[in-house]
């Protein structure tokens, strides 16, 4: 205690009288000072603010005033919200299994390939490095009607019927999803490859000695031992599909989320509510819904991982 009064006179003395442990505590908090300030101001405070804004009627022009659960009531009564909610889960329900199935099959066979292994891996991985906003335009071009669109050109050269793709309310969502699946495959394949390589070779050897077929080895050894990898990828890609935005926004800039809102995901609805209609409070309540959905998914993941 008395050291405090002497501090100005003998800072150096005080420092040298401190134990190694005390000095380390000071260093530690010194290192953490700026990051903690960052996390408080840029992460925690905005989190609370988002919850608060969701119960206000804040717009750009008028200051926020408390309206209780008004925004949430409006959301539940809004048919557009339910359409968007359905779309968002369609991206998830189609995107996650399709992309995981393709990437697992590719990784499973690629793992055994030695000839030009890294070259082939690179082919699959390259799309992961592209900019979604840029590639959405490439895909948009592919989906155009003849004579512009590449896919319809190919279909017509085989005498197959033309597809409306982005113009059809039923085809548009899978059409928008395709570039997102495409871009994510490379990452998933690399993670699967790492997971496959982490399985000890002795397990396989033992199984072969026991005379198990390839299919039985896959079912009884490979897939169970890949469970942590699978859980990670399911959660990671689910979160990605639930937050889809860049592709949807860019693939149809005339009417983002169209036609007739058939491709509109939650993040796009948030964006339009906040920055086209300027209903910030209403948009905030939508972000809280997104948060809750992602929270449930994370909790399910924790649960599955603990069961392991």
């Amino acid at each position, binding site marked *: 205690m008395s050291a405090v009064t002497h501090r100005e006179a003998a800072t150096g003395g005080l420092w040298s009288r401190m134990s*190694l442990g005390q*000095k*380390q*505590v000071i*260093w*530690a*908090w010194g*290192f*953490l000072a700026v*990051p*903690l300030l960052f*996390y408080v101001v*840029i*992460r*925690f405070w905005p*989190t609370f*603010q*988002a919850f608060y804004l969701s119960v206000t009627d804040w717009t750009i022009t008028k200051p926020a005033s408390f309206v209780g659960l008004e925004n949430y009531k409006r959301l539940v009564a809004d048919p557009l919200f339910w359409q968007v909610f359905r779309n968002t889960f369609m991206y998830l329900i189609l995107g996650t299994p399709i992309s995981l199935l393709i990437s697992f099959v*590719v990784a499973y*066979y*690629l793992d055994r390939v030695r000839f*030009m292994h*890294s070259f*082939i*891996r*690179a*082919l*699959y991985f390259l*799309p992961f*490095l*592209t*900019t*979604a*906003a*840029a*590639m959405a*335009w*490439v*895909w948009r*071009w592919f989906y155009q009607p003849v*004579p*512009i669109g590449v896919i319809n050109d190919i279909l017509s050269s085989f005498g197959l019927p033309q597809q409306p793709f982005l113009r059809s309310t039923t085809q548009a969502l899978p059409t928008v999803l395709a570039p997102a699946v*495409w871009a994510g495959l490379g*990452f998933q394949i690399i*993670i699967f490859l790492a997971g496959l390589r*982490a399985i000890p070779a002795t397990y396989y050897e033992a199984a072969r000695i026991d005379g198990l077929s390839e299919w039985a080895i896959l079912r009884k050894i490979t897939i169970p031992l890949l469970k942590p990898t699978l859980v*990670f990828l399911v959660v990671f890609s689910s*979160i990605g599909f639930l*937050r889809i935005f860049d592709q949807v*926004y*860019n693939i149809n*800039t005339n009417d983002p989320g169209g036609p007739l809102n058939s491709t509109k995901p939650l993040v796009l609805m948030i*964006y339009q509510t*906040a*920055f086209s209609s300027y209903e*910030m409070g209403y948009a905030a309540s939508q*972000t809280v819904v*997104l948060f809750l959905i*992602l*929270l449930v998914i994370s909790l399910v993941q924790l649960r599955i991982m603990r069961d392991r």
Partner: protein
Amino acid sequence: MSRVRPGRIVSWTLLFIGGVIMITPIIFMLSTSLKDASQVYDLRVIPAAPTLDNYIEILGDGRFTRWFINSMIVAGIVTISNVFFDSLVGYTLAKFKFRGRYLVFIAILSTLMIPTEMLVLPWYLMASQFGWVDSYWGIMFPGMMTAFGTFLMKQFFEGVPDDFIEAARIDGLNEFTIWWKIAMPLVTPALSALAIFTFLGNWTAFFWPLIVTTSAELYTLPVGLSSFAVEQSIQWEKIMTGASIATLPTLLIFLFLQRYIVRGVMLAGLKG
């Protein structure tokens, strides 16, 4: 063995065809960027008369150069900041013993549960109050540190033997020097993984830059490209050129650093 061979060849061929299909959109984008308007609907992969006119025209207009520089500055500074701060915090949480350490770790980790979309509105409010809209700082500030990077670095610093750090302490080095000169060089694979992820994430980022920039001067490349493509409407060769300019840097980096990038993705995926 000889009975396995045909199957191997079939699976190799199928994998190869699949790989070619995977890069088809990229190939078409690049090849169309080298065509003039009259050749666009000719679907030949190798242009009949390749030309750099699209690039000359687009880069000559100056906007793309500006957006390219903006993206470089933003992604570069955010990457440096993450490599510095995420590893500083990760190291502190891994190697210092002090009361509150666990609490700090849990607090930082808990921010992973908050989607950025939820923070975007408060960030926008903050940016407009402090005049950060349409500034580099406005684009960068949300990403200067990440919980993911901190967690990744903490995992790796835990693998650094305490003996190294103790020995440096006995030599009289201060804690900052120990971290920077002794511990950091021992985790370079993790640092490069973090740097690659952060750069790629910020280079391709679209949602926040779209919100926080209103003047074309401050657009990043993806936002600029999007606005450019809208105004070009059906001039696909121009749009493909813009898309190529946005995509080529990360593809080129990959060609040079393939080994590190793949290893980095594996490291981050397994530890993250």
